[in-house]
């Protein structure tokens, strides 16, 4: 892989993170006096002054920017005003719960979505294909918060078989995972199907069939590996939608993760916690996208060359 491709990708990723930091800074300053925002309108002027001093709010804007950036890189992002602890700490302790939910969901999504898509493509235009695709469209269209509420209504309220809130046992995972994985699996099924169909229409597949290669072998050795390449491209999108789905699902099921923390912080305008969470999400997404881009270039040399031209 060319070094230029690598460097460009990494440079872009860093640039994006800088942009996001700047965006948060601008939004924070535009939103008014941060000191007032943090202490609320009834704060006494003395503590306001202390805070302004501490955050450098009295200095010219470019100095504030420099201070802000340096604070961010030192991991100093302010204190949560809800419980007075370091915002980074508050967010960090929630990460494991969120990750555990996301891993399980990702596994379920891939295990259902990709095989469903492949089956659909292999049985293109049959009843099985149509049923799968109809389910996929429905799965895509049902908002996850409504699905979550429906599941609670059925399994917790009506039949009383599953707990509706918390994260203590494996039973607590079932409904959140279904809630999140439904739409994701639908996306994967649709995408895999179209990627597969495109590959199956390629001349080299038809050649292989014409040569008398057994169908199973054609699929296993020619179609599947090539269809895997485009599927990698939506991995970045997948991570993004897992994060969004996670935020909503954690709130539906009172899951004590980062998503629930974020919404509480937004509702209470706990800005320190909000900015830590956003930075966390941004960095993980940019990193994930970087890995996906590099993996993609590694999987498909054509794309790598084409992309470095285009950039």
């Amino acid at each position, binding site marked *: 892989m060319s070094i230029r491709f690598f460097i460009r990708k990494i440079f*872009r990723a860093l640039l*994006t993170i800088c*942009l*996001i930091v700047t*965006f*948060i800074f601008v*939004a*924070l300053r*535009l*939103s008014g006096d941060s000191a007032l925002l943090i202490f609320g309108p009834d704060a006494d002027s003395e503590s306001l002054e202390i805070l302004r001093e501490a955050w450098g709010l009295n200095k010219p804007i470019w100095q504030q920017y420099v201070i802000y950036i340096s604070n961010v890189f030192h991991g100093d992002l302010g204190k949560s005003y809800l419980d007075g602890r370091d915002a980074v700490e508050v967010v960090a302790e929630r990460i494991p719960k969120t990750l555990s939910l996301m891993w399980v969901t990702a596994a379920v999504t891939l295990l259902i979505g990709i095989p469903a898509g492949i089956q659909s493509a292999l049985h293109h235009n049959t009843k099985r294909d149509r049923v799968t695709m109809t389910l996929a*469209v*429905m799965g*895509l*269209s*049902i*908002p*996850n*918060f*409504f699905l979550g*509420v*429906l599941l*609670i*209504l059925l399994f917790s*309220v009506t039949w009383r078989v599953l707990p509706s809130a918390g994260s203590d046992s494996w039973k607590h995972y079932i409904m959140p995972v279904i809630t999140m994985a439904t739409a994701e699996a639908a996306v994967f099924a649709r995408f895999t199907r179209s990627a597969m169909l495109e590959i199956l229409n390629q001349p080299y597949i038809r050649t292989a069939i014409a040569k008398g290669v057994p169908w199973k072998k054609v699929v296993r050795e020619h179609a599947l590996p090539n269809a895997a390449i485009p599927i990698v491209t939506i991995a970045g999108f997948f991570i*993004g*939608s897992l*994060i*969004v789905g996670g*935020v*909503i699902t954690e*709130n*539906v099921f009172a899951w004590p993760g980062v998503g629930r923390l*974020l*919404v509480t*912080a*937004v*509702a209470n*305008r706990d*800005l320190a916690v*909000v*900015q830590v969470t*956003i930075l966390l*999400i*941004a960095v993980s*997404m*940019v990193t994930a*996208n970087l890995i996906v881009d590099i993996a993609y270039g590694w999987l498909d040399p054509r794309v790598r060359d084409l992309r470095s031209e285009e950039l």
Partner: protein
Amino acid sequence: MTDKLEVELTHSEEKPQENFQIRIHRFFGRYPPIVIIAALWLLFMIFVAVFATLISPYDFTSIDLRTRLQAPVWMEGGDWNHLFGTDDLGRDVLSRLIFSIRMSLLIAFLGTVIGAILGTALGFLAAHFRGWVDDVVMAGIDFQASLPFFIISLTLLAFFGNNLVLFIGLMGIYGWERYARITRGLTLSAITHGYAIAVNTLGATPIRVYLRHILPNISSALIVNMTLNFPGTVILESSLSFLGIGVQPPLTSLGNMLGFGRDYLTTAWWITVFPGVAIFLATLSMSILGDWVRDRLDPTLM
């Protein structure tokens, strides 16, 4: 010069009279039943939204504590006064549903229109000026693509607080980058070769070139994108409202209704289920319609 087209034209006029069954068959070949149902449902929802004040039986804010949490008419305890039951404050669920549909569709509609105009205009600007304007627009596109928009909206709502105008503006920012990317790409190819240059050499102003020539030519791609974007906007709005950081009371939207009704899930499921079903059916029909439009107008687009 002999004209082939003329010959073909006279042929086509001599088509035999089609019988009714063939015509029906052709109609459904062009418009599958599922597409017709989806379109009818959407029309119905639009009708409900437009005439909300006329068809809703009650004012959606009117409280009647004597009839709190009354069940829908077909259940035990329900009556014809409140078709879909009442909520925790005795407000008529049907009326709230009607006004929620109006609010949600209005926000999604405004958001889609704002996003389309904003994105298309920025795409044109980027393609026209190139240089640093292009760089800025592209950086914006990259930025927006680097974070899920849901997260961006959460941040902005946290920093700026919430009001309806800001909220609608946010929905407009959602998805602008896709219009901008489509417009920029197609415009660039049109103005570096092809008809746009030709019109330019005729002495047309850039505005004429963009609005009279390029816009009609890229409109199908933009319309396809709008149909893909609309359900996304509905879901974004209702998700935020569901979490309590979107549309604020006393106004109501589908997500907002669902979010508040969630607390009464054990006693009054109807408060949450009706708006949920409404969102589901709206996005479902929009997706069906969108897939169909895409296949017809622009099969190359993902």
